[in-house]
Structure formats: C-alpha cells, structure tokens
C-alpha cells in the first residue's frame, strides 16, 4: 500500500517540477493519493505509533506538503489554507514522533506570507508564536518576518524594490498581492509627505514600469502633473469645501447661542 502512495507521490512531484505542469492531471493524482492515504493503517485514529506507522505519517506529511505547492501553482487560496492546516498537525502535534521535515520552514514561511498578503496581522502573530525558535532563522520564515517589520515601519519602497528577490518561486504569488498594497500605501504616503516630486522619482518610489503609469495614477488620485513634476495639491478644492463647512458650523452654533441667551435673559 505504501509503495503505491510513494510512486504516486513521486509522479506528482515530477509533474509539479516539470517546467509546464499539467495542473488538472496533478489534481487528479492528488485525489488518488488522498484516497490511498485513508487506507494506511498508521493513519487511522488511535493507531499505535509503531515504526511503520511513523513512516506512514511521514509519507502523509509529504503528500500534504506537495498538495500545498500544488495549491500555490493553482493560485487556489482556500485549498492552500486547508492543506497548510493539515500539514501543521504533522509539524506540531507529531513533533516528538516524526523527524523534522526539511520543508517545514518553507511551508510555514509561505503561510506567514499569506497572512501578511491578506493583511491578517493578528493571525500572523498567532501563527508566528507557533513557529519553533530553531525555524525562525530559516531563510523562508526570516523573509516573511523581515517583510512584516518593513510593512509596520513603512519601508514600502524597500519592499517594492526587493520584490524580485524571493527565497522561492512559490513566494511570488503572495508577493504580487503585497506589491499592490505597498504601491497603494506609498502613493498615500507620498501625497501627504511631499509637496512636489519629479516623475522619475515617483516611478522609482512606486516601482512602476514607465512614466505613463504615473499619469493614470495622477488621474485617479487627482494629482496635478505639469511637465516633469507632479504636485500633490489635489486637496485644495477639498480644503475650500471644508472651510465652507466650518464657517457654516460656526454660524449655526452662534445662532444657537444667541437663541438660548435670549431665552435666559
């Protein structure tokens, strides 16, 4: 039975590692593998932890780890979450029984990345607490940790410029989501922090591809583009409206005071 699973897993891995994996075929293989797993004795509830069972548990862990990679390639987030939570059981609950997986750091790092990309920071910290100390130095986990710190500090430009450098190709999927967020945040910050910026700098700050994108962005956000510089004075019209509103408020209040005073006197 185990040999079946082993060959199936090898097949799946080979397909995934090929330059152009056939995802549909991979999913079929995975379903077959999962069905095969249910028949392993060591995976039954309340099974004894014999040497055989341990190797079967490790096999199951390998299958689910591969499933996580498949979900990433497929860009299927719910399936990713499901498989990560399956794998976590093997990492933490069986920590004393199984040999540590060489891919543990990679997967946990990916999971942390997902939480950052989805802006679920509270859950990020909850998950981080679970990551054992020896794994925190793992390049994948450390990468996610550094990203989170840069995000809280506000070093969006650094994130954007380093976006190309990921520890593994599987990180790119989440990194893309993150870049969109970072770009938006940078634009927000730039609006408030600068009065004028030249186009070239803005292109570099936002890690845009060409100056034309600045124009479209300026249209959306109401920036004034004049020649080579961008002026963030888009607020002027807004401020006037605020001023008017303020004056109206003041007038209303003073009228009220007058009315009340009249009643008292």
């Amino acid at each position, binding site marked *: 039975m185990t040999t079946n699973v082993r060959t199936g897993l090898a097949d799946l891995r080979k397909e995934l590692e090929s330059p152009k994996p056939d995802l549909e075929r991979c999913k079929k293989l995975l379903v077959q593998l999962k069905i095969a797993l249910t028949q392993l004795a060591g995976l039954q509830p309340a099974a004894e932890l014999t040497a055989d069972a341990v190797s079967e548990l490790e096999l199951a862990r390998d299958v689910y780890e591969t499933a996580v990679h498949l979900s990433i390639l497929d860009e299927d987030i719910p399936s990713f979450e499901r498989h990560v939570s399956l794998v976590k059981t093997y990492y933490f609950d069986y920590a004393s029984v199984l040999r540590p997986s060489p891919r543990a750091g990679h997967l946990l790092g990916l999971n942390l990345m997902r939480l950052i990309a989805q802006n679920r920071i509270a859950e990020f910290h*909850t998950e981080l607490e679970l990551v054992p100390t020896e794994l925190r130095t793992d390049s994948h986990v450390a990468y996610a940790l550094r990203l989170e710190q840069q995000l*809280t500090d*506000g070093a969006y430009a650094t994130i954007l410029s380093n976006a190309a450098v990921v520890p593994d190709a599987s990180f790119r999927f989440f990194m893309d989501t993150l870049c969109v967020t970072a770009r938006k945040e940078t634009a927000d910050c730039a609006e408030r*922090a*600068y009065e004028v910026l030249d186009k070239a700098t803005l292109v570099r700050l936002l890690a845009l591809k060409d100056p034309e994108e600045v124009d479209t962005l300026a249209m959306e956000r109401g920036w004034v583009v004049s020649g080579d510089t961008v002026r963030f004075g888009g607020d002027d019209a807004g401020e006037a409206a605020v001023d008017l509103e303020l004056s109206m408020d003041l007038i209303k*209040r003073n009228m009220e005071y007058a009315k*009340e005073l009249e009643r008292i006197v």
Partner: protein
Amino acid sequence: MVAADVEMSDTPAKAVAPAAEKASAAPPTAESILAEVKRNVATIDKAVSAKDMRLLSRVLRGTTRVRHGVAPAVLASLVRSHVMDSDAKKEALAALTALPSPASTSDADVGMDVGADVGTDAPSSPCTPESGAYLLLLAVMLTVDHRKNAGGSALAVRVADALVAHLSQLNRRTLDALSARAFFFYARAHELAGSHAAIRPQLLVAYRSATLRRDVATQATVLNALLRNYISFRLYDQADKLLSRAPFPETRSNNQLARHLFYVARVKAVQLDYSEALTCLQQAARKAPQKGALGFRTHVAVMAVVVQLLTGDIPDRSTFRVQEAPMREALAPYLRLTAAVRVGDMSAFVDTVEQCGASFDADGTRSLIGRLRHNVLKTGLRKLSASYSRISLADVAERLLLPSAAEAEAVVAKAIRDGVTEATIDHEGGWMRSTDVGDVYGGPEPSDAYHTRVTFCLNIYNEAVRALRFADGAAEEESVEALRARLKEEQELAQAIADGEVDDEDDGDDY
C-alpha cells in the same frame, strides 16, 4: 515561558509561608498540625452532614499551613485509617511512604503516637468521602511539593490521576470545592512532569461535566487549567476559540478570576488587542491577593508594562518601585526597556533586547517586545522633528538605525501620513523639514471645545428650569421609587462586597 510560569504557582506560596509562620506567635509544631488535620476532618464531616459549605471552605482556606507542616508519615497513617478503600488510597499510601520524612527528632514519636491514636478511633469513625478526599488531596499536595526528589513528579502524577479518577466516580455536590482543587493539582502535576499535552481530553470532559452539574468551582478551575495548557504550548488560536465558546462562570473565587483575566490578556496581547489586554491585566492585578502570590503578581506586572508600552503609553515610574525584592529584580530589564522606548532611543532598545534577551525569553514576552520596535521608531522620529527644524534623511537613518536614507524617507513618509509628526520631505535636498505646528487657535478645535462646554452648561440650565416647572406629585412619586431602587442597589452592593471579601480569603494557597 513554561518554566517561569510554573514557578508562578508555587514559589510565592512557599516564599510567603515562612513569613506568615514567623508572624504568628509560635511556629506550628508537628502535634498542632496533626491536631489541626484531625479537627479539619471532623469539621468536614460536620459540614457535609449539616450541608454547610462555609465550614468546608474555611477548612480549605487553612490548607497552606497544613500542607507545609504535615509530615508524610503522619498523613499516611491518617489516610490509612480514615479513607475508604480505593485505588486512590493505595496510590496515595505508596507515594507517601516513598517520600522522605523531614529530619526531625520528634518525628518518629509523632508517627507512633498517631498510629496508636488512630488504632483506637479508626473503627469508630465512619468517614465521609469528602474528608477522605481532603486527606488524599493533602497527599497530592505533598507529593507535588516533593517533586524535586527522584521520580517525584511521576509520583505526583500517579497520585493525582488516581484521585481524579476516584472523584469522578462520586457524584456528590458536597465534593465540588474539593474536586476543583483536585483538578488544579492534577493539571499542575502533569505540567511539572511534562505530560500535560495528553491531559487536554480529560480536562475537556471534566469541564463538560462540571458545567452540566453547575459545579462552578470546578468549571472555573478546569477552564483556567485548559487555558494555561493551551498557552504553554502557544496554541493561542485554540485558547481564543475556547474563550469565545466557554463563558467564565460568574460566581467563582477571586483568585480564579485573576488567573482567568491574566490568560485572557495573554491571548489578546498576541492578537494585537492591546487595550483589551491592558484592561484585563489591570483587573487581574486588582483581583490578585495583595500579599503573597508574588510570582503571579510579578507576571501580571511584567505583562502590563509590555502591553502598556505597546499601546503607546509609558508606565508610571512607581510601577517599578515595588517593595518585594524579587519582583523588583524581575522588573529591572523592563525598566531599561521602558527608558529606551520613552526617549525613542533605538540603539538603547536594541542593546536592551540583546542583553536581557534571556529574561524576556523566560517571561515569554520576547515576541511582544519585538513589536515595540515600531513604537521606538515613532517616538524617535517625533523627538527628531521636534528638535530639528530641518534634518537630512541620512542623519535620520543613522539615528534610528535604519539601513539607508531611502528607507528613512519611506518611514518618515508613513509617519507623516499616520499623523505621528508634522513635516514635509524635500526629495531633491534629501531632508525632512518640520512644519511648525500651525496656530492651534486658528483651527476648529478651540471652538469645538468651547461648544461642548457651552452645550453642557445650557443643558444643565434647561433641565433645572424644567425641573422647577414640573415640581408636582408625579415627580415626587417617581423620586420615592428612585430612592427605593437606590436603597436596594446599595444593599446588593454591600452584599456583593461582603461576598467578595469572603472570596478573597478563599484559597490563597493556589498561587
């Protein structure tokens, strides 16, 4: 964290016990302890027959003294004569005989005395399960106390297991208070032996039956044991889910409430809900016993300091000026940390984290402190923009230990957007220019503040006028009603305070 947390429960009790003994006129002798245990057994029997639970809780309150005074041999003979035959009794006896007797000359005599004594009155005293449980509980406490000996913790686990199994067979409401204690020591013994991952199912079962039987004491204790269990494995997610599903019983001892609040605070702090965590910690500090329970209070104080820093506040200097030396020492690294955060000194912060890393790790606050970096950054930036009207971004990067001027630029930009500082960045010149805080009186704030006050005054005036106008019978009747309601409320409050005090005295030894 686990190691330090463990100490929280026991050290204070031990540290305080000798002090308490010194304070009382005469240290308890072996004889007086023996007499007390016997008296307690009799009181419990009486409590059970009279169904008066106050007597029982009075006995439990005095457990600490007995626990530290009674010799294993003495207890063994009491167990032999008073407890119904059961597996728990066998285990307890085996454990007690394995424990070394304290080296005291009169010990042998006392042991013999007891033997003779007991020999005569054993047949005449039919013992209730409650007093049996009390003696067995004492046996568990003794074995837990002797965990330092070889195999001590394994022994404690076996006795506690047997006791819990024994108690779960008996379904008597009079046993509730005792079984709560039994579960506490059951969880504790397993934690000391390192086998506490495996007891979660049992605790969950115990929680369910306690809830069904409306046994609030056990319910509260077991819930706390579960939370502690989850937190010690950093399973904050599970702890949070448990918290959201399992309400903490409203009638419970203050000590359990304090513990519960502490665990809630830990979960909330991890989930970035700092203000909620801080409220819980402050309440926990208030509910914890004011004398004793030093370990617990230290933990609460440490957590409170870290969480308060995370909320952006700076704790009072008086927080660190505590009477008890061990607590002051434990807080010392946090004092350095606070100093660094207060002035926004990044290098001092990094140094502190490096040098005191071990104690932060032991307290389990390391990851929370890691999050403080951002606060230091913000404060540092605020100081810089306050002191310089113009400063180059390279200097900012240097002061705040940022890797590059470009990163400093981004950090400053975010700070400006978040309203941390009032400044603009000149990208060409590569500097940050603090904009003067504009004329405060030019903005709408003064008029807003003025407006709230005026509205308040006008409302008072209008209400006063209205009250004068309608001073008739209807209003009077209403006020009588209100008076009655207030009196009733006051009575309830007084009652609640009295109850609270009773609870306060309750089980001080658990900590």
